[in-house]
Protein backbone atom coordinates (compact mmCIF):
# COMPACT_ATOMS: atom_id res chain seq x y z
CA UNK A 1 0.00 0.00 0.00
CA UNK A 2 1.39 3.40 -0.91
CA UNK A 3 0.64 6.62 0.90
CA UNK A 4 2.45 9.02 -1.42
CA UNK A 5 -0.70 10.51 -2.95
CA UNK A 6 -2.94 10.91 0.06
CA UNK A 7 -2.55 14.32 1.68
CA UNK A 8 -5.72 13.77 3.72
CA UNK A 9 -3.65 11.34 5.70
CA UNK A 10 -1.62 14.20 7.10
CA UNK A 11 -4.72 15.83 8.50
CA UNK A 12 -5.69 12.48 9.98
CA UNK A 13 -2.19 11.95 11.37
CA UNK A 14 -2.19 15.26 13.23
CA UNK A 15 -5.72 14.60 14.45
CA UNK A 16 -4.79 11.21 15.84
CA UNK A 17 -1.63 12.43 17.57
CA UNK A 18 -3.44 15.44 19.05
CA UNK A 19 -6.32 13.25 20.27
CA UNK A 20 -3.84 11.04 22.11
CA UNK A 21 -2.32 14.11 23.81
CA UNK A 22 -5.44 15.87 25.09
CA UNK A 23 -8.10 15.22 27.72
CA UNK A 24 -10.96 16.12 25.37
CA UNK A 25 -10.26 14.21 22.14
CA UNK A 26 -13.70 14.97 20.71
CA UNK A 27 -12.82 18.68 20.66
CA UNK A 28 -9.83 18.16 18.34
CA UNK A 29 -10.33 19.68 14.89
CA UNK A 30 -7.71 19.87 12.15
CA UNK A 31 -8.34 21.92 9.01
CA UNK A 32 -6.11 21.86 5.98
CA UNK A 33 -5.50 25.22 4.28
CA UNK A 34 -3.82 24.96 0.89
CA UNK A 35 -1.14 27.50 0.11
CA UNK A 36 0.91 27.78 -3.04
CA UNK A 37 3.88 25.75 -1.89
CA UNK A 38 2.56 24.05 1.19
CA UNK A 39 -0.44 22.95 3.18
CA UNK A 40 -1.09 24.52 6.55
CA UNK A 41 -2.72 22.22 9.08
CA UNK A 42 -4.62 24.26 11.65
CA UNK A 43 -5.12 22.44 14.91
CA UNK A 44 -7.81 23.42 17.39
CA UNK A 45 -8.28 21.78 20.75
CA UNK A 46 -10.38 22.51 23.83
CA UNK A 47 -9.10 25.67 25.57
CA UNK A 48 -8.04 23.61 28.60
CA UNK A 49 -5.95 21.36 26.34
CA UNK A 50 -3.95 24.05 24.51
CA UNK A 51 -1.08 23.69 26.96
CA UNK A 52 -0.95 19.95 26.36
CA UNK A 53 -0.39 20.25 22.61
CA UNK A 54 2.13 23.07 23.00
CA UNK A 55 4.03 21.78 26.01
CA UNK A 56 6.62 23.38 28.24
CA UNK A 57 8.73 25.79 26.16
CA UNK A 58 6.79 24.65 23.09
CA UNK A 59 8.43 21.29 23.11
CA UNK A 60 5.38 19.17 22.35
CA UNK A 61 4.44 21.44 19.43
CA UNK A 62 8.03 21.27 18.20
CA UNK A 63 8.01 17.47 18.46
CA UNK A 64 4.77 17.26 16.47
CA UNK A 65 6.30 19.51 13.81
CA UNK A 66 9.38 17.30 13.64
CA UNK A 67 7.15 14.25 13.13
CA UNK A 68 5.08 16.10 10.55
CA UNK A 69 8.26 17.18 8.77
CA UNK A 70 9.56 13.62 8.52
CA UNK A 71 6.27 12.26 7.26
CA UNK A 72 5.73 15.10 4.78
CA UNK A 73 9.16 14.42 3.32
CA UNK A 74 7.83 11.01 2.38
CA UNK A 75 4.78 12.65 0.82
CA UNK A 76 6.96 15.06 -1.16
CA UNK A 77 4.88 17.97 -0.03
CA UNK A 78 5.40 20.58 2.64
CA UNK A 79 3.02 20.69 5.58
CA UNK A 80 3.16 23.15 8.43
CA UNK A 81 1.35 23.00 11.73
CA UNK A 82 -0.48 25.94 13.28
CA UNK A 83 -1.92 25.64 16.74
CA UNK A 84 -4.82 28.00 17.25
CA UNK A 85 -5.13 29.30 20.77
CA UNK A 86 -8.25 30.33 22.59
CA UNK A 87 -8.42 34.01 21.65
CA UNK A 88 -7.60 33.12 18.07
CA UNK A 89 -10.29 30.44 18.08
CA UNK A 90 -12.85 32.92 19.34
CA UNK A 91 -11.89 35.34 16.60
CA UNK A 92 -12.02 32.62 13.95
CA UNK A 93 -15.53 31.56 14.90
CA UNK A 94 -17.01 35.04 14.71
Amino acid at each position, binding site marked *: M*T*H*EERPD*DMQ*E*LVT*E*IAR*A*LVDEPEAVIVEAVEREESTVLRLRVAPSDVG*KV*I*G*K*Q*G*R*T*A*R*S*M*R*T*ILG*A*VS*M*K*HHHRYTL*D*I*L*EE*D*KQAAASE
Partner: protein
Amino acid sequence: MPIEDYNAAAQKIAALLKTLTTTGGLRLKYRITAGAGAGEPDGLEGCEIYVELGGPDAPLLTQRGGELLHALEHVAAKVIRLENEEHDKISFDANNFKAIRAHELKVSAEAAAERVRRTGQPYSFAPMSSRERRLLHLAFRSFEDIETSSVGEGARRFVVAHTKGYDASKLASLQAAAPSFGGGGRGGRGGDRRGSDRRR
Protein backbone atom coordinates in the same frame (compact mmCIF):
# COMPACT_ATOMS: atom_id res chain seq x y z
CA MET B 1 3.17 9.83 39.42
CA PRO B 2 4.53 6.35 38.70
CA ILE B 3 3.46 4.46 35.62
CA GLU B 4 0.56 2.60 37.18
CA ASP B 5 -0.50 0.37 34.37
CA TYR B 6 2.33 -0.77 32.09
CA ASN B 7 -0.05 -2.61 29.83
CA ALA B 8 -2.24 0.41 29.21
CA ALA B 9 0.80 2.64 28.69
CA ALA B 10 2.36 0.19 26.23
CA GLN B 11 -0.92 0.00 24.33
CA LYS B 12 -1.14 3.78 24.05
CA ILE B 13 2.41 3.95 22.71
CA ALA B 14 1.68 1.11 20.29
CA ALA B 15 -1.38 3.03 19.03
CA LEU B 16 0.74 6.15 18.49
CA LEU B 17 3.36 4.22 16.55
CA LYS B 18 0.68 2.47 14.54
CA THR B 19 -0.68 5.86 13.50
CA LEU B 20 2.76 6.71 12.16
CA THR B 21 3.18 3.47 10.26
CA THR B 22 -0.33 3.34 8.79
CA THR B 23 -1.65 6.90 8.42
CA GLY B 24 1.84 8.39 8.34
CA GLY B 25 3.24 5.77 5.97
CA LEU B 26 6.56 5.44 7.83
CA ARG B 27 8.02 1.96 7.43
CA LEU B 28 8.97 1.23 11.01
CA LYS B 29 8.93 -1.82 13.21
CA TYR B 30 8.79 -1.53 16.95
CA ARG B 31 9.10 -3.58 20.07
CA ILE B 32 7.85 -2.23 23.37
CA THR B 33 9.14 -3.59 26.67
CA ALA B 34 7.47 -2.42 29.87
CA GLY B 35 8.15 -3.07 33.54
CA ALA B 36 10.68 -1.98 36.14
CA GLY B 37 14.16 -2.00 34.59
CA ALA B 38 12.76 -2.61 31.08
CA GLY B 39 15.19 -3.96 28.51
CA GLU B 40 17.73 -1.20 28.09
CA PRO B 41 20.99 -2.77 27.00
CA ASP B 42 23.22 -1.29 29.70
CA GLY B 43 20.51 -0.71 32.31
CA LEU B 44 22.15 2.53 33.40
CA GLU B 45 19.10 4.73 33.03
CA GLY B 46 16.69 2.40 34.79
CA CYS B 47 13.73 3.25 32.59
CA GLU B 48 10.34 1.56 32.80
CA ILE B 49 9.22 1.54 29.20
CA TYR B 50 11.71 0.81 26.47
CA VAL B 51 10.79 1.11 22.80
CA GLU B 52 13.11 -0.27 20.18
CA LEU B 53 12.54 0.83 16.59
CA GLY B 54 13.83 -0.62 13.35
CA GLY B 55 12.74 -1.08 9.77
CA PRO B 56 13.53 0.60 6.43
CA ASP B 57 12.74 4.13 7.66
CA ALA B 58 14.65 3.84 10.95
CA PRO B 59 17.55 5.96 9.60
CA LEU B 60 15.10 8.92 9.48
CA LEU B 61 14.86 8.67 13.27
CA THR B 62 18.55 9.10 13.95
CA GLN B 63 19.29 11.94 11.53
CA ARG B 64 20.27 15.34 12.95
CA GLY B 65 21.29 14.03 16.34
CA GLY B 66 18.24 11.79 16.66
CA GLU B 67 15.78 14.67 16.32
CA LEU B 68 12.83 12.52 15.18
CA LEU B 69 13.63 9.79 17.71
CA HIS B 70 13.57 12.35 20.53
CA ALA B 71 10.39 13.92 19.14
CA LEU B 72 8.60 10.55 19.17
CA GLU B 73 9.89 9.84 22.65
CA HIS B 74 8.63 13.19 23.89
CA VAL B 75 5.16 12.78 22.35
CA ALA B 76 4.93 9.22 23.68
CA ALA B 77 5.84 10.43 27.18
CA LYS B 78 3.08 13.06 26.95
CA VAL B 79 0.55 10.55 25.58
CA ILE B 80 1.04 8.41 28.70
CA ARG B 81 0.89 11.60 30.79
CA LEU B 82 4.41 11.66 32.18
CA GLU B 83 5.49 14.97 33.68
CA ASN B 84 8.72 16.46 32.32
CA GLU B 85 10.80 15.25 35.25
CA GLU B 86 9.50 11.71 34.68
CA HIS B 87 10.57 11.47 31.04
CA ASP B 88 13.50 9.26 31.95
CA LYS B 89 11.01 6.50 32.64
CA ILE B 90 10.56 6.04 28.93
CA SER B 91 13.28 5.53 26.36
CA PHE B 92 13.15 5.13 22.58
CA ASP B 93 16.03 3.76 20.59
CA ALA B 94 16.57 2.95 16.91
CA ASN B 95 19.40 0.90 15.45
CA ASN B 96 21.18 1.14 18.81
CA PHE B 97 21.64 4.89 18.29
CA LYS B 98 21.24 5.78 21.95
CA ALA B 99 22.96 2.64 23.20
CA ILE B 100 26.03 3.58 21.16
CA ARG B 101 25.83 7.16 22.41
CA ALA B 102 25.54 5.96 26.01
CA HIS B 103 28.63 3.82 25.51
CA GLU B 104 30.49 6.83 24.03
CA LEU B 105 29.57 8.88 27.08
CA LYS B 106 30.82 6.17 29.39
CA VAL B 107 34.14 5.95 27.58
CA SER B 108 34.57 9.73 27.55
CA ALA B 109 33.75 9.84 31.27
CA GLU B 110 36.60 7.42 31.92
CA ALA B 111 39.01 9.49 29.80
CA ALA B 112 37.91 12.72 31.50
CA ALA B 113 38.31 11.22 34.98
CA GLU B 114 41.84 10.16 34.09
CA ARG B 115 42.66 13.66 32.86
CA VAL B 116 41.23 15.38 35.94
CA ARG B 117 43.31 13.09 38.16
CA ARG B 118 46.44 13.83 36.17
CA THR B 119 46.07 17.61 35.87
CA GLY B 120 43.92 18.48 38.88
CA GLN B 121 42.01 20.83 36.56
CA PRO B 122 38.26 20.63 35.86
CA TYR B 123 37.23 19.07 32.56
CA SER B 124 34.31 20.59 30.58
CA PHE B 125 32.15 18.48 28.28
CA ALA B 126 30.18 19.78 25.29
CA PRO B 127 26.61 21.02 25.91
CA MET B 128 24.15 18.12 26.12
CA SER B 129 20.49 17.35 26.72
CA SER B 130 19.39 16.73 30.30
CA ARG B 131 19.20 13.01 29.65
CA GLU B 132 22.75 12.83 28.35
CA ARG B 133 24.01 14.93 31.25
CA ARG B 134 22.31 12.53 33.60
CA LEU B 135 24.01 9.58 31.90
CA LEU B 136 27.35 11.32 32.38
CA HIS B 137 26.71 12.06 36.05
CA LEU B 138 25.79 8.40 36.51
CA ALA B 139 28.92 7.24 34.71
CA PHE B 140 31.07 9.22 37.15
CA ARG B 141 29.49 7.66 40.21
CA SER B 142 31.96 4.79 40.08
CA PHE B 143 34.90 7.20 40.51
CA GLU B 144 35.12 8.11 44.18
CA ASP B 145 37.74 10.84 43.71
CA ILE B 146 35.89 12.75 40.96
CA GLU B 147 32.70 14.83 41.21
CA THR B 148 30.55 16.32 38.47
CA SER B 149 28.49 19.50 38.20
CA SER B 150 26.29 21.04 35.50
CA VAL B 151 27.11 24.58 34.40
CA GLY B 152 25.38 27.01 32.03
CA GLU B 153 21.75 27.54 31.08
CA GLY B 154 19.27 25.89 28.74
CA ALA B 155 20.64 24.39 25.55
CA ARG B 156 24.17 25.49 26.53
CA ARG B 157 24.20 23.56 29.80
CA PHE B 158 27.14 21.18 30.13
CA VAL B 159 28.79 18.82 32.58
CA VAL B 160 32.07 19.58 34.33
CA ALA B 161 34.13 16.85 35.98
CA HIS B 162 36.41 18.00 38.79
CA THR B 163 38.29 16.76 41.80
CA LYS B 164 36.40 16.18 44.99
CA GLY B 165 36.13 19.36 47.01
CA TYR B 166 36.95 21.65 44.07
CA ASP B 167 35.81 25.23 44.66
CA ALA B 168 32.35 25.22 43.06
CA SER B 169 32.32 29.02 42.71
CA LYS B 170 35.07 28.73 40.09
CA LEU B 171 32.96 26.47 37.88
CA ALA B 172 30.57 29.18 36.68
CA SER B 173 33.27 30.86 34.60
CA LEU B 174 34.13 27.70 32.64
CA GLN B 175 33.34 27.34 28.95
CA ALA B 176 31.76 24.27 27.38
CA ALA B 177 33.81 22.15 25.01
CA ALA B 178 32.95 22.38 21.30
CA PRO B 179 30.06 20.04 20.45
CA SER B 180 31.23 16.64 19.27
CA PHE B 181 29.48 14.69 16.53
CA GLY B 182 26.18 13.31 17.75
CA GLY B 183 26.51 15.41 20.85
CA GLY B 184 23.86 17.55 22.37
CA GLY B 185 20.98 15.60 20.93
CA ARG B 186 17.85 17.64 21.26
CA GLY B 187 19.55 20.40 23.19
CA GLY B 188 20.74 22.47 20.28
CA ARG B 189 17.69 23.74 18.48
CA GLY B 190 15.84 26.08 20.72
CA GLY B 191 14.09 28.48 18.40
CA ASP B 192 10.52 27.30 18.39
CA ARG B 193 9.13 28.59 21.63
CA ARG B 194 5.59 28.91 22.82
CA GLY B 195 5.43 32.48 21.62
CA SER B 196 5.62 31.42 18.00
CA ASP B 197 2.27 29.74 18.20
CA ARG B 198 0.11 32.61 17.03
CA ARG B 199 -0.49 34.29 20.31
CA ARG B 200 -2.10 37.67 20.45
